[in-house]
């Protein structure tokens, strides 16, 4: 009985260790020449292509709902002039990174994982190993670089989109003053907060990429296996990234 429960505890832990080992391998391979530029650009384009529509829709739904409801609160307080400040907090400090989590995990991560899982199940990865090509160097590194790059670009896009969408919502639907909206954006959100936001998106892209690549390369068990791998990758990514976002925010509050 004790050995069974030990195995149940050890299995997820050993997966964490394996993923960490793969990450370290990838970090070494990152500086091994030649860097697979072509694959990296193709992957970046692939991730952007699958993520852009979810990004826009999730951003609209997520950020605008927050701004809408907070504006109701501000209206009650008679402080609708602060709408821009709240939009800044919402889209740059907290909600923007959350949207990035959702998009990077749900769109980019699933696409990477499904792609690599399909290659694993067709034994393409084994064939590469036989040919003496390191899949970490050839496949994982360009995907990680692409995931991080796209995550940072999408994050900026989400921040700007949230602020612009918030402008239309606050000014045209809820009657905020356009001038005071623009003026108050910088009230709570300065360059330091923007840098933290960019750091967050960097970490999110990296973690999502590592989890997606790891689950994609370790697929077993036929058609059920690939589906389960993608499912687990996205669940784990969201479950890991939300606490990471909290930790980065707490560090930010303690330091700034």
């Amino acid at each position, binding site marked *: 009985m004790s050995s069974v429960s030990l195995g149940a505890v050890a299995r997820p832990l050993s997966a964490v260790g394996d993923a960490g080992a793969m990450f370290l391998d990838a970090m070494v391979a990152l500086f091994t020449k030649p860097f697979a530029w072509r694959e990296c650009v193709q992957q970046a384009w692939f991730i952007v292509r699958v993520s852009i529509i979810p990004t826009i829709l999730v951003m*609209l739904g997520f950020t605008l709902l927050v701004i809408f*409801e907070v504006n109701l609160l501000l209206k009650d307080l008679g402080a609708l002039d602060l709408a821009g400040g709240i939009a800044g907090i919402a889209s740059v400090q907290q909600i923007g990174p959350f949207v990035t989590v959702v998009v990077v995990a*749900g769109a980019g991560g699933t696409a990477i994982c499904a792609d690599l899982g399909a290659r694993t199940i067709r034994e393409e990865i084994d064939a590469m190993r036989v040919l003496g090509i390191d899949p970490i160097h050839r496949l994982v590194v360009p995907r990680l670089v692409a995931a991080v790059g796209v995550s940072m670009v999408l994050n900026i896009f989400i921040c700007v989109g949230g602020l612009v969408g918030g402008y239309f919502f606050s000014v045209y639907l809820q009657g905020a003053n356009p001038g005071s909206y623009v003026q108050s954006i910088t009230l709570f959100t300065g360059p330091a907060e923007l840098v933290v936001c960019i750091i967050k998106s960097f970490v999110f892209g990296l973690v999502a990429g590592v989890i997606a690549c790891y689950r994609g390369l370790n697929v077993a068990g036929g058609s059920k296996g690939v589906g389960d791998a*993608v499912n687990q990758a996205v669940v784990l990514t969201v479950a890991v990234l939300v606490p990471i976002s909290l930790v980065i925010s707490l560090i930010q509050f303690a330091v700034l």
Partner: protein
Amino acid sequence: MSTLEQRVRGAASAPSKALETVGEQGVFYARVLGNIPRALRKHPKEIVRLVAELGMGTGALALIGGSVVIVASITFFAGSVAAAQGFESSKNIGVSSLSPILAAFFTARLSTPLLAGVALAVTLGAASTSQLGAMRISEEIDAIEVMAIPSLPYLATTRVIAGMIVITPLYICATLAGFLADYLLLVKFYSTGAGDFQHYFFLYLQPLDVVFSYIQVLGMVAVIMLVHTFYGYTAKGGPAGVGEAVGRSVRTSLSAVMIVNLLIGMSIYSNVNTFHLAG
């Protein structure tokens, strides 16, 4: 040259293809919903089994406690973020003792339903797609049809019903986890007074808000289960196709869920404003 021609042709047929997909999905959803009475009458046992399975999860996810633990932990951390940001922002303008008000507002109305929607899409939804997709690829669905059991009510409709049932206990856990996070962060971490927290938190925690957020989540779960069963039920292209279907269904359902949430939220809160600071 030929690739250019193919691309132009592809672009020209894209709108009609998109329209076709919309129609296909619409017909599927109508059939799933239309079969609800039949599924309730003929497959009650299957529904009960699915409720247990969706709640506890399968495979490796069951090891870490299943959907309940995952959804509750995500809303827990989201509630913490809301409480922390509320505390820091209100400290900026010197009213940090009022931060429980902000925590109650943000957690009940925003962070819990939104993040629960995301968590439900990736746990309940994606698991259903993966299961149904694997069944489709290994021709189990065809086998069911051959045995003269209509597969759509048996597989898709039962999952939608089970999702709608399982959401109630799941969402209770998720909401409580969010409130617990508010308490722990504000009282234990930021040392707001416990009495202060209790007073302001429950003064401004509107019971109606929780009910409304439950309605939002019900809407989201209906959309999630419909989208995910569609992509699983229509998976094709071998094992690789199942992975592709899961990825595509997650992208679609996340986008759809957020828009549904925005629409429900706007229609509720622009008509009924439960929050009155000034009384």
